[in-house]
């Protein structure tokens, strides 16, 4: 098949760009372990308050795990529990959240913590809070009449 020289150049360029992009995504997923926040852990949505770790919402120190703290949030129409939480700067935290009623969002504005909370499922995201400041948590899944009032706050303090 005859192919123009310039045609070969842009085909090589396009294919190598694709290979680079997919390799970066692959390394991110399989080597660095990045995954979607819903890890398919299930929970009975009617008994959230009685089950660990959701019986103690807020920041809990843990020992012997790859992270220092577990930050537990329970969402329900139209609020988060806790409504405000302080996290020490530099702490490695596993954010664990679920909902008691309908689908809610869990977006810590300006960060990569952005999860969908589905009734019956537990969503998790592990990260290191390495920048001090106030971070607003908002619901970004329309959940009902009070959707726009649903918020919480994480304060990363020294």
């Amino acid at each position, binding site marked *: 098949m005859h192919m123009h020289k310039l045609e070969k150049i842009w085909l090589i*360029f*396009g294919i190598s760009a694709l290979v680079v992009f997919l390799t970066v995504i692959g390394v991110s997923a399989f080597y660095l372990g990045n995954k979607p926040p819903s890890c398919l852990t299930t929970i009975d949505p009617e008994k959230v308050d009685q089950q660990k770790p959701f019986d103690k919402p807020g920041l809990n120190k843990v020992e012997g795990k790859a992270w220092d703290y577990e930050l537990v949030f329970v969402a329900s129409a139209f609020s988060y529990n806790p409504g405000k939480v302080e996290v020490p700067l530099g702490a490695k935290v596993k954010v664990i959240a679920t909902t008691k009623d309908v689908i809610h969002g869990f977006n810590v504005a300006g960060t990569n913590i952005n999860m969908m909370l589905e009734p019956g499922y537990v969503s998790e995201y592990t*990260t290191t809070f390495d920048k001090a400041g106030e971070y607003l948590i908002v619901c970004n899944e329309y959940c009902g009449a009070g959707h726009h009032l649903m918020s919480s706050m994480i304060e990363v303090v020294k």
Partner: protein
Amino acid sequence: MAKAELKTKQKTVIEDKSSLKGTLASVFFVGAFIIVTWVGVYYLFLERF
């Protein structure tokens, strides 16, 4: 008798005048845009916690 045209010795030269330089430039322009936006978004993902 008229000469049959097929027997002329004159060669018909077909020149390929179609240039693909403009197409190459356009492809690289779009490619550069895609790479810059992709790298920008990935940098944002790495920079934030």
